[in-house]
């Protein structure tokens, strides 16, 4: 793990995490908003669907529950992109990369292969997140902070599923 020491400009995850906790507190106090991300993808899908098949989107019950429009959370998710971009450019750690190092070590540097798996993974993950009614932000952070049983259960199974899949993907790989 030598690369950890040479990674300049990075902050301790304890400090950055603790500060994120403060951001959550201020956010809830100020606007009443707990963190969450996955509903934004429903709204985005709805907006995209509206462009192609407006009649169909109007009929779907799920898009009536989560109207296809911009809201606090969608702005929040866009903000994460902007904030990360600022941090990365500012500290010089921005890197245009289409295949993660760990992936490349095991499966080679083909961005097509990585892209296909990432796309399929995205479909499964989001389907699961909507079924679970939340993702690591909504269930993990917000749910656990509030000591919600639903958050704890979902969080445990996020990791169980993730550990099973990485076992399969990196089967036989070096530990």
């Amino acid at each position: 793990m030598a690369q950890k020491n040479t990674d300049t400009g990075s902050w301790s995850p304890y400090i950055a995490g603790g500060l994120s906790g403060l951001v959550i507190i201020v956010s809830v106090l100020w606007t009443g908003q707990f963190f969450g991300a996955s509903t934004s993808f429903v709204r985005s899908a709805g907006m995209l669907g509206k462009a192609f098949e407006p009649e169909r989107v109007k009929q779907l019950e799920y898009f009536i529950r989560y109207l296809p429009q911009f809201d606090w959370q969608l702005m929040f998710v866009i903000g994460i992109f902007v904030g990360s971009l600022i941090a990365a450019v500012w500290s010089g750690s921005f890197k245009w990369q289409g295949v993660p190092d760990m992936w490349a070590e095991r499966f080679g540097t083909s961005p097509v292969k990585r892209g296909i798996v990432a796309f399929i993974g995205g479909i499964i993950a989001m389907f699961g997140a909507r079924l679970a009614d939340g993702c690591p932000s909504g269930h993990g952070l917000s749910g656990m902070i509030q000591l919600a049983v639903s958050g704890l259960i979902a969080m445990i199974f996020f990791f169980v599923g993730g550990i099973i899949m990485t076992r399969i993907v990196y089967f036989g790989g070096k530990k």
Partner: protein
Amino acid sequence: MGLLTGMLFGFLLQKARVVRYDKQIGALRFQDMTIVKFMFSAIIVGMVGIHFLEFFGLVQLLYKPVVLGENITGGLLFGLGWGLLGYCPGTQGGALGEGRWDALWGILGMVTGAGLYAETYPFLKDNILNWGNYGYLTIPQLVGVNRWIVIIVFIAGVLALFRWFEKKGL
């Protein structure tokens, strides 16, 4: 406000390197616990702050009900997808922000997955979505003790976990 809050969070996520595939999958392979350290640090700070404010009536809790069918099958499915993608819904925008453009495929996949879910929702609602519905439940209610006791025990457990990570060099 959402944009500003997201920017602060995204900045911190990137600074701690939490958004990266190698860190996310590293945790699932028990090689690098950066994301777990980040998450639990945020959780314990947030937990104390939110419950403190709620005690004085300054904020309202807003959590989700326990529905075992949803939480377990959905959680498991999410985990399987996460293990393939290596990014999660909140952080992958951040991964794209630092130039990891394979996150684009993940974002497209997620929008597709959300659309697929909306299409199958009527069917799911009649089947697994209501199985094991226990309503709104918190850990203190479940165990039957004061919430501050749960918070103290939780924090102690997290600190012990952190100590163990550092000892093992994870």
